[in-house]
């Protein structure tokens, strides 16, 4: 034994020459009763660690027992059995405590507490409402049953029956008694069958039956084997009585016609009788009985499988001898603790019991350990004369309460023993049951484990998910400034015709080129709002929001969503498409999020890039044949959609009126507006080479041949601002393109090469430029397209590397002209404003007309872009 016992002395009170074996009894909550065999019973409070009261009885006290509800204490005295209620004790103790005196209160127990006037009672036991007394008459033991009323503090008991057992004269006893004059207390315990219902008296109390060392639930089979079928059928508790003459007797209490019978004879005074679980099955009842004799004989009584004649179960009595003398003992789940007076020892019953079988089974492996186990281990605590039932403290150590020969109350804490006992054998009926129990227990544990595992797994998943989200967030936040974002959107516009109605669809593609996965919970939000909007919208930007929650977007993949941008003739261009990624926390937590009200709308919104869809994107380019048709009969569309034609013509008329002023309204041929952009052809060529070199190997040649055509092509097909037009398939290698704008008006885009130069300047000074002219009857279309073209050319300029100032003169020339024009226009505007301000002869119509003229002039003379 490696560990040592911790002995803690709680209190000390001297006691000398006793007339009976001392006894320590736990009771009344944390109180401990100490009966030393003298007239006095000490009440020790384990909580306060002090002696709280001394009960002074009229004669030597031989035994103590408590009622099941721990309300009454019965004490066997020379002159009879006395009964003290805990309330009485408490009230007296408390009143004495109120005096603040530290000395314990002394209570004199007078004859008014006398319950049973039977003399010489040695031992007591309470079974339900029956009080048993055991006393010795000349040559016999008298076991008397008294009916003990519930509130028995005052009233006396009625004797029910009495049995006498012949005293087996024993030399040992006579000798000893002669020498020391100590009366041995017979051991009385109550045994119930494990399947019997608890005693009625204790079941009425709120708590479950407290199994003290004196009330044992025994395994049903062993119970039947030892005490008979009748006792089991009658569900009667059985009194087991270990007498100082060595007899182990039993008596079923509640069985008609039962008599005390001898179960076994130890041939030495019985010191202790108890029950032990031995097998660590949590079935709640003991598997074997243990009786210990004074000279060290230990008898284990248990069920033996397979009797001598191949017949079922039998009760097996296994005797062993340990070095005695045994002064007192107590039993634990599987250990017997006993004191020899000079040492406290522990005997492992489980190994001792199954030792023989164990050796037969696997002799070579286990015989060594068995041999080691079978001998009791010393706990090195001496002079213990009484032990209370063992308890387990929260740490799992066994705690014994002992009384030393000098009158010290000691708490003995035993070190933990390693659990390395092997498999024990069990009766087959038990095996089935216990296997079932074990399996269900395993099932429960498995369920719990898998539940916990899934919990952990989901939390891990959430954490991983959150990690991804954070990564993406950082990436996006960091990438807002830089143009090259790893996660970005680009889009494609496409006209589609559905139900005779043209509409422009935007296909938005989210590219995830980051190393992270966009997982469940992310939403792509696309907000579309026009850059400018008609005043009819009421000052507010008529923005439209589309959200596309998606499941997962792994790294390197892209998500394509389609959204209707505008129906024909409704929307106003250019439009801004701003994309953002939204992550909602609720999706992260799943169902748990439902518990948090606040979480449900908490989202992270991370802006992606912004796209612009302008007029050029929204153009519906007609094929050459269509264009021909359109040129001839612009308003005579196919017969099938006459209504559409009608509506269109109406619109055109109206808009024509608005644009052209009142006088143009009646004209079939409307006023054409135009605007143009001029770009240095060299510039275009360079740009296109740069561009096509990384796209199309054949492109450059073609582009070089007719620059104006390719410029037009570029304008229409270039994915400007991340947006492409959808009609890339058909080659538009034409210099004149007819198309329809989103508002339904036809537009004509013409590109040609023009030599720009001052007439006065020499030929070499002149520059080849490409002029793209926009013509349409709709001023909105012209403006929009012009704007769009200019924006593109701007980017083109950014892209092309800076040139030498070879064209400086041209540039200055252009600039001068432009300046002149601008000055002229400024004058005009000022005039209009002056006349408008004074309201001199000019109607508002006239003023708008003249403003329009200025505007047209601004448009018409393009700035040469070099």
């Amino acid at each position, binding site marked *: 034994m490696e560990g040592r016992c911790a002995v803690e002395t709680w209190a000390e009170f001297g006691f000398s020459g006793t007339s009976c074996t001392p006894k320590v009894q736990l009771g009344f909550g944390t109180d401990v009763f100490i009966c030393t065999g003298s007239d006095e019973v000490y009440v020790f409070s384990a909580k306060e660690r002090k002696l709280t009261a001394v009960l002074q009885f009229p004669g030597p006290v031989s035994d103590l027992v408590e009622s099941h509800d721990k309300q009454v204490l019965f004490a066997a005295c020379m002159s009879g059995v006395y009964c003290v209620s805990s309330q009485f004790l408490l009230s007296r103790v408390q009143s004495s405590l109120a005096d603040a005196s530290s000395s314990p209160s002394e209570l004199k127990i007078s004859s008014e507490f006398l319950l049973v*006037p039977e003399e010489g009672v040695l031992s007591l036991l309470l079974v339900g409402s029956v009080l048993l007394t055991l006393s010795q008459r000349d040559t016999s033991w008298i076991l008397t049953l008294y009916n003990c009323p519930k509130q028995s503090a005052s009233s006396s008991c009625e004797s029910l029956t009495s049995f006498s057992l012949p005293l087996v004269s024993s030399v040992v006893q006579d000798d000893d008694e002669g020498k020391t004059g100590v009366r041995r207390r017979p051991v009385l315990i109550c045994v119930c069958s494990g399947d019997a219902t608890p005693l009625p008296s204790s079941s009425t109390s709120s708590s479950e039956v407290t199994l003290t060392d004196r009330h044992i639930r025994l395994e049903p089979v062993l119970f039947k084997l030892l005490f008979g079928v*009748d006792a089991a059928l*009658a569900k009667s508790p059985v009194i087991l009585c270990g007498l100082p003459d060595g007899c182990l007797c039993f*008596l079923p209490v*509640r069985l008609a016609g039962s008599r005390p019978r001898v179960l076994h004879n130890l041939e030495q005074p019985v010191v202790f009788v108890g029950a032990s679980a031995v097998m660590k099955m949590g079935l709640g009842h003991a598997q074997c009985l243990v009786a210990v004799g004074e000279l060290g004989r230990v008898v284990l009584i248990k069920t033996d499988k397979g009797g001598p004649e*191949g017949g*079922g*179960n039998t009760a097996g009595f296994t005797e062993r001898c340990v070095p005695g003398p045994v002064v007192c003992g107590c039993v634990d789940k599987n250990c017997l603790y006993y004191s020899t007076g000079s040492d406290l020892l522990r005997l492992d019953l489980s190994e001792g019991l199954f030792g023989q079988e164990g050796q037969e089974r696997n002799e070579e492996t286990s015989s060594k350990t068995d041999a080691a186990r079978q001998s009791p281990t010393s706990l090195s605590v001496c002079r213990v004369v009484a032990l209370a039932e063992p308890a387990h403290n929260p740490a799992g150590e066994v705690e014994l309460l002992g009384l030393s020969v000098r009158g010290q109350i000691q708490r003995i804490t035993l070190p933990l023993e390693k659990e390395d006992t092997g498999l024990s054998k069990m009766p087959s009926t038990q095996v089935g049951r216990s296997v079932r129990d074990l399996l269900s227990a395993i099932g429960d544990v498995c369920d719990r484990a898998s539940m916990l595992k899934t919990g952990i797994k989901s939390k891990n998943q959430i954490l991983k998910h959150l990690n991804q989200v954070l990564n993406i967030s950082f990436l996006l936040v960091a990438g807002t400034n830089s143009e090259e974002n790893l996660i970005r959107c680009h889009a494609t516009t496409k006209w589609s015709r559905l139900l005779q109605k043209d509409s422009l669809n935007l296909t938005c593609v989210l590219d995830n080129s980051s190393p992270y996965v966009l997982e469940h919970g992310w939403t792509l939000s696309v907000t579309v709002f026009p850059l400018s909007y008609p005043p009819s919208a009421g000052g507010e930007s008529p923005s439209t929001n589309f959200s596309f929650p998606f499941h997962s977007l792994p790294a390197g993949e892209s998500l394509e969503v389609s959204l209707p941008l505008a129906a024909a003739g409704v929307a106003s261009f250019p439009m801004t498409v701003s994309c953002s990624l939204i992550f909602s926390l609720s999706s992260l937590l799943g169902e748990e999020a439902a518990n948090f009200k606040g979480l449900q709308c908490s989202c992270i919104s991370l802006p992606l890039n912004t796209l612009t869809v302008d007029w050029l994107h929204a153009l519906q380019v007609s094929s050459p044949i269509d264009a021909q048709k359109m040129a001839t009969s612009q308003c005579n569309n196919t017969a099938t959609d006459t209504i559409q034609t009608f509506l269109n013509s109406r619109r055109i008329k109206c808009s024509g009126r608005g644009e052209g002023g009142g006088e143009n309204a009646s004209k079939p041929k409307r006023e054409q507006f135009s605007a143009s952009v001029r770009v240095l052809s060299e510039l275009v060529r360079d740009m296109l080479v740069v561009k096509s070199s990384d796209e199309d190997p054949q492109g450059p040649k073609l582009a070089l041949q007719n620059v104006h055509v390719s410029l037009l092509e570029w304008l229409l097909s270039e994915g400007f601002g991340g947006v492409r037009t959808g009609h890339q398939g058909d080659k538009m290698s034409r210099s004149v393109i007819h198309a329809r704008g989103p508002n339904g008006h036809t537009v004509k885009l013409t590109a040609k090469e023009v030599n720009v130069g001052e007439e006065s300047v020499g030929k070499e000074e002149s520059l080849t430029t490409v002029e793209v002219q926009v013509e349409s009857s709709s001023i909105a279309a012209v403006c929009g397209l012009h704007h769009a073209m200019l924006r593109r050319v701007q980017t083109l300029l950014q892209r092309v590397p800076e040139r030498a100032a070879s064209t400086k003169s041209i540039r200055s020339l252009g600039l001068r002209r432009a300046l002149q024009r601008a000055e002229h226009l400024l004058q005009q505007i000022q005039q209009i404003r002056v006349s408008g301000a004074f309201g001199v002869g000019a109607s508002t119509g006239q003023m708008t007309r003249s403003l329009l003229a200025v505007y047209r002039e601004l448009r018409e003379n393009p700035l040469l872009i070099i």
Partner: protein
Amino acid sequence: MCQYWWSFTLCTVVTFQFAFTFLFQQQERGAEAVSHNQNQTHQRWCLSEFHKLSRKIQGGIPPLVDHAQSELTVVYNTCLCSAALSQLSEAELLLSQATERVIQMTGDDPISSDPPAFWRTLLKSVGNTTFNSSVQHLLCLQWALWLAKCQLKTIQEFQDELFSLSETLSTELGDDKRSSERGKSSDIPLLVMDPRRLIELLQTCTFIAQGAERLSEGQSSEALSGLQKASSLPAPRMLLAYTHHLSGCCLASMSCPQMALQCYRKAVETDSRCVCALYQSLLIYRELGNTQAEIQALRLLHSSLLLPSATEPPLAGAALLSPSVLLCSQSLNRLLSVPSALSVLHSLAQKCVLYGRVSEGVEYYLDLLAALHSDDQHGVHEDPPLPRLPELYLEAGAALLTARRPADCMALCDEVVGTTLELLPEKLVLEEPEETSEIETGAVGAEGEDRMRMLLWTGAAYLLQGHCHTHLRDWKQAVTHYTRCINLLVKVHFKKKGDADMVGKQGTNLCILQRLKGLSLAGRGISFSQTDQLREALRDLHLSLQAAPDCVGAGLWCGEVLWRLGRRQEAAACWEKTWSFTAQSSVEGLRLYLQEPQTGPLLDSTELQHRIQELGPTLSA
């Protein structure tokens, strides 16, 4: 000087004694209200005080004639209290000490140790002294002690003197009374019990004890004459009832049952608590075969046993010495003994079921089981002992089945099976114990016996369950249960030792075993016949008839199955044989659950007769 001191001491002693006697009598008067237990406590206390007093007197006062009367009165009181508390040896010791002192007072030589002779000389020597009456009182006590110790022979020898005591005492006490009337403060101490009352009690008890003794020795007529004498004496009701009861017993043993019944009736009329008379009359009815009267008597006995005062009669008013202390001879106790309420209830239930009052019997059985499970059963010794609890369960089950409550029956059987099943051996050797070897084998044999019984109980439980299923016409389940029973029974190997007629002995395990075999095989055969498995049915029924030839159901059904198989001649023979058996055999002694079930499918005997008659002509033809 010394003399003065003595007299002073004695005076104080006597005054003390007065006080105690007074207290005692005070207590006695109020005794009715006080419980028996407290009364006894009080007696104990008085006794201990008396003891102290007498010790003081005998230790401190020399044996002088002057104080003899006071001293002897104290001794009388002490002894009487001791005797009342059954502390006979103590009383005896005190008495002998007192007589020794008397001898010292009179100054005679030590006299013979033979008790009658001793007392004769003692009485003679104190003949003229003042304390003559006190010595006579002591003789009364001696008489009481002899009686209590059942020394009837001594009493017999001394009977005349003892019986004449009453006359002498009554005259003397008359004088005493006069003197006590003269002055209350006179120093004649009081007695805790009037000696005349004591003598009356002793006389009656002596007659009763002697009567019982003679009856047990077979001298019925002599006993009867003594008891007749006793019945005319003044005595408490209880004792009078005893005399009538014992007379009845004498008459019964003289084979005059009707007169005995008269006496028993008189006894019950005198004291309704005399349940032993009820019990004896019940035995006579049983002997006479009057079942209905027996059942009536049993019912009466049971209800009177349940009365609270029935077993423990309260202490009769003034009588300190209860007759129960004086009447303790074994022969008398045997005659006065009554079985416990539970065994009465059991025989009542059994009789009711056996004699057609099934529903009543079932109720009694259920009462019995409830009583056995109640909390207030505390190992009261039963004489005769009740059957073992499983047997009671099985009997109750059989009764329930007879009352057509198969579900309840099955529940009870389940309980029995559940209790015993784990303990059953794999195989068992049954040896019918020979008379000589029984004692030697002792404990081992008892254990084997218990195992055998357990097996038989389980078998019987299965059998009853089979019957239940048969009753419910659930043939498949019935076959299952009968088979279980049979499988269990074949585990027993019978080792034949003695004669072959062991089987015939009723109540032996072998008999029960064979009976169970027969019944379970018959049950299974009948169940098979119901499901048209005729071959199996015939096999089982044949086996059943081998095991228990007197099984009526098996015989009849065997014939029926043979008939159905077309073996009509054999069938007819089988039926005839069975009917011949029915006339002979009786199954009285068997337990209820070993009786043939009344609930299964039945065959009408008259119909069978018809069939045989129809068969007749073809036979002759």
